[in-house]
Each structure stands twice: as structure tokens, then as C-alpha cells.
């Protein structure tokens, strides 16, 4: 019955369940559930090709859309953008056709969890990685759409940000169908929902806003002003204010521009938060006192600046480039 398409039963598979595709005949053995969301459930499974993630969607057309997107992403040269797609098939169980697809299993920590344990500095580094991938996607004529921490994972080893849920990927010029209010330009009153690179860059900025306060909040009367004020007054965000404001107001037409400016901003800012990476060179007590007296002693600035810059270059070399 069509009316219940939004409320289909959840699929619930025991570990060990064998799943065989009706069209391609490949078999998968369920290991465990990786997670479930509004759209479906994802299982870790054994396959002849090794461990894979198998997604069962509640809505079959949603599954088809996601598969179409994964196929498109696979055509993009370079590091994979979404999980690689292995197989698409139907499983006949209890007289029902259940469609599923098998994809690369990405081991790692969901970004939401990652942000809980790591500092804001990491959020910025991951954002720089993300912007690089977005630039590649945008150049192919697509945007991510529903960009939010839940759809991103920090893969291990290597701490590289990867995309999980690509159901929102949209051709530039079309309308964004899947979005999440806090990360949505339309919700905050900063523009329409027609897919353009700016739409993603707005969401990217909001991921940093979320990461800084580790919370989402609701809009109030004058939502635009509220958001810009929040950034201005937030201790972690104020140093990135220029970049964030530009992203939020749609001034960046390319992810690369935002990435370059964010990178530069992070390189230049040695905020108290960035210093804790730098334990060994923490200035002595005496030095701190002196610094405090002179507001910002240039020596300390220089030492810290050099170390922070050195460290960042190292990070960028290792994880971003």
C-alpha cells in the first residue's frame, strides 16, 4: 500500500543470515548491523570478495537513486568519493522482493563521534580534506546536498574523511530534495534549494559551527542575524569569521576558494586551542607571565607561530594533501 511507503517495517537480520541476490546470484553472510537510519539499515557482511557493507532500503526508489549516484561517483578520477559499489540486487525473502546493494565497508569513526573526542582543530583539518573532495564533485557537475556529520565518517587508518550516505547528491541546477534543517541554507533564510556549489559550502560552514559548539540549535526570529552573531561571538569560531561568513552568504562559488582561505586562516591563527598540540614547547611559567604583562610578547608569538606552522605543515602533508 503506497500510503505506508514512509512507514515500512524495518528489516532485522540475525547474524549468520545468508542473502543471495536474485539477478546476479552473489551471496552475502550477515556479520552484524552497522547502523540504521530513516532510509534503511546497513549490515556488515562476508562476501567472496571480502567484507562489505550491505544496505537494505525501506524505499526501493531511494535505493535506486543512491545506486545511480554511487555509479556516477565511481567515474570521478582520483581517490574514491563515496564507498565503492560492488553489487546491486534483489533478495527474495518471505515472498517479498527486498532490494539491496553491496558497497565498500569503510572502517572508521563516524564524524559525530570523532568530533566528540577530538578537538575543534581536527574539525578544521577534516574540513580542509572535505572541501578538496567537494571541489572534485562540483567540477563533475554535482553537489553533495545533505551534507552533515552523520553522513561522513573518518576512516581508519589514515584519518581521512569519507562520504557515507550519498542519497542527497544532486545535479547542479536541480532542486535539493534531501536536507537537514540545521545545515540547510533554505532553513536559515540564506537562499533557495537549487543545487549550486554554494549550497554545499553553506553546509560545510555549518559543520564547523556544529563542531565548535557540539550542538545544533534552532533558528529564531531574525535567523540570518542570529547565525552571524553566533559565529562572531563564539570563541572558537570568531577567528574563522571571515571564511564562515563568506561561505554562509554564498560568496564562494568554488570549494577550492573556501579551502584556500580556510587553510590560510588556520595557518595564521595560533589560538589557545591550537597550542595544546604543542605540549613540548609550552612556554615556561615565567614566559607566560611576561607575555600576559605585555599582552602578546612577540617572542612567544614567534616561537609558537613557528611551531604551530611546522606542525600544521606536517599534518597537512600527512593527512590532507
Amino acid at each position, binding site marked *: 500500500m503506497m500510503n505506508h*511507503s*514512509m512507514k*515500512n517495517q524495518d528489516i532485522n537480520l540475525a547474524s549468520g543470515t545468508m542473502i543471495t541476490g536474485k539477478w546476479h546470484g552473489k551471496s552475502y553472510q550477515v556479520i552484524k548491523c552497522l547502523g540504521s537510519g530513516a532510509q534503511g539499515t546497513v549490515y556488515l557482511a562476508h562476501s567472496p570478495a571480502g567484507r562489505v557493507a550491505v544496505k537494505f532500503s525501506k524505499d526501493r526508489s531511494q535505493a*535506486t537513486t543512491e*545506486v545511480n549516484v554511487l555509479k556516477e561517483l565511481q567515474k570521478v578520477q582520483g581517490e574514491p568519493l563515496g564507498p565503492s559499489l560492488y553489487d546491486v540486487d534483489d533478495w527474495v525473502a518471505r515472498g517479498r522482493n527486498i532490494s539491496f546493494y553491496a558497497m565498500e565497508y569503510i572502517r572508521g569513526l563516524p564524524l559525530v563521534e570523532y568530533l566528540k573526542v577530538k578537538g575543534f582543530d581536527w574539525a578544521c583539518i577534516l574540513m580542509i580534506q572535505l572541501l578538496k573532495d567537494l571541489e572534485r564533485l562540483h567540477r563533475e557537475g554535482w553537489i553533495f546536498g545533505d551534507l552533515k556529520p552523520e553522513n561522513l565518517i573518518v576512516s581508519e587508518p589514515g584519518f581521512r574523511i569519507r562520504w557515507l550516505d550519498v542519497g542527497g547528491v544532486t545535479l547542479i541546477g536541480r532542486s535539493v*530534495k534531501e536536507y537537514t534543517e540545521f545545515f540547510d541554507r*533554505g532553513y536559515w533564510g540564506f537562499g*533557495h534549494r*537549487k543545487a549550486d556549489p554554494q549550497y554545499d559550502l553553506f553546509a560545510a560552514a555549518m559543520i564547523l559551527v556544529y563542531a565548535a559548539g557540539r550542538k545544533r540549535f534552532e533558528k529564531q526570529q531574525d535567523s540570518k542575524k542570529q547565525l552571524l552573531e553566533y559565529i562572531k561571538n563564539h570563541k572558537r569560531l570568531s577567528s574563522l569569521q571571515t571564511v564562515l561568513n563568506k561561505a554562509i552568504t554564498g560568496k564562494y562559488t568554488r570549494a577550492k576558494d573556501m579551502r584556500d582561505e580556510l587553510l590560510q586562516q588556520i595557518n595564521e591563527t595560533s589560538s589557545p586551542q591550537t597550542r595544546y598540540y604543542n605540549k613540548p614547547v609550552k612556554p615556561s611559567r615565567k614566559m607566560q607571565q611576561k607575555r600576559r604583562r605585555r599582552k602578546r610578547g612577540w617572542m612567544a608569538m614567534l616561537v609558537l607561530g613557528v611551531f604551530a606552522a611546522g606542525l600544521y605543515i606536517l599534518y597537512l602533508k600527512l593527512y590532507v594533501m
Partner: protein
Amino acid sequence: MKKGTLKQILLITDGCSNQGEDPAAMAALAKEQGIAVNVIGVIHDHQSDDSGIREIEDIALAGGGISQIVHTKQLSQTVQMVTRQAMTQTIKGVINQELQNILGDHETMEDLPPEKRGKVMEVVDELGETVDLEVCILVDTSASMKSKLPTVQEALLDLSISLNSRMGNNQFCLYSFPGKRHATNKLMAWTPQIDSISSVFTKLASGGITPTGPAIREAIQTFSKTSRRSFLSDDESFYEESGY
């Protein structure tokens, strides 16, 4: 395939009609004329399974549309999601009909191998993006809905942002019920954009009656006045019944 106009009635109510025809029957009447009826049930936090919810589901079933029960807070996203899904559903119905014409009796999109299904889905998406859409929005403004109207208003503005981001054209009109002399009360005539409704909900008649059935009947009338070709022919079998 010729591209026509998708027609929808979007009913926002908290259920429990108490006057006039059975709303489900009126929804079925709409469906017969190529108009899908979607229902969003806005419920109170403590309201649980009752006849109101049943009525909401029945209207959508009879009207070939989608129903969704929400708490006031999630209204915005739900309104756009329901409208979208209903569009996709109608388009898929039409495409399945075409497939049956080509492939024989019982073939639907779901019987195709995954690769072909992907191709068909691209066509569905393409149509969903480019087809013209007419939505007649019917808002229940009976007394019990009063506290929810600011949120309803916001949700409708949001719907307008979403739909106007599509490539196809949109027409909206807005009616509240109960009206003074008729079942409904016209708040906004057909217009491509909802951007000026901030004041419309202020002039409300909040009486004790909820004539949902008659309201749907009047909503159907608004469509014939726009004299547009329907996306659906008068053949109701376009709505296929497989569950997905």
C-alpha cells in the same frame, strides 16, 4: 511521454471531521479526476492512536496520496517530503503504466533488473524535477489547530522555497476551513509563489465545526478553474499498488 501538470491537494489537519460528506469519499472523487490527496496530520503530543489518525490515513489511501502524522515541530520538513514523495509516486504510476503497455501485463518498474531500474529511476527523477505542479493547500483552522498555525505558515513558506528550487513551474493556492459561508475560505488564489501569507492566518473563524469532506470537494473545484491538462488521464489504474 507528454508532460502535463501534476495536481495535488495538500490537507493539513488534526483529524476528526464532523460535518458533511465523508472526507475519504471526497478524496476518492479527487483521485478520479487526477488529483492526488495528501494529508498531514498534526497531532498533539499526548494524542495517540485514535479515530483522527485513522481518518487521516483513510483520506490519503482513498485519494491516492501519502499521509504522515507529525508533531508540530517537524512540520516543515514533512510538508516538503510528503509533497515530493507524492509527486514521485504519481510519476512512477504513470511510468509503470507505460511499461505495462510496452512490456505486457504485469511488468512494473520493480520487476526490472537493477540496471534497467536505475535507468527508469533517472527518468522519474527528471520528470519530478521538470514537471509542472499545482498544489491546493487546505488548512484546517478549527479551534484545536489554532496554536499550530504559525508553524503551518512557516512550513508552507518552506515548501515554496523547496518547490520553487525545481525547474518545473508551480502554482499554489491556499484555502482554510471552516469558512464563513462555504466550507472553505479562500486565503490565496493560484500563484506561483507563497511569500505573502504572513497575514492570511489572522482572520480565522474558529468555530466548532470541521467540514473536511466538503472542503476537499471545494478544493477539487479550484482545479477545473485553472483549465490545465492533467498529468494523469482519467484512468485511475495509473496508481500501481505494489508496495515500496
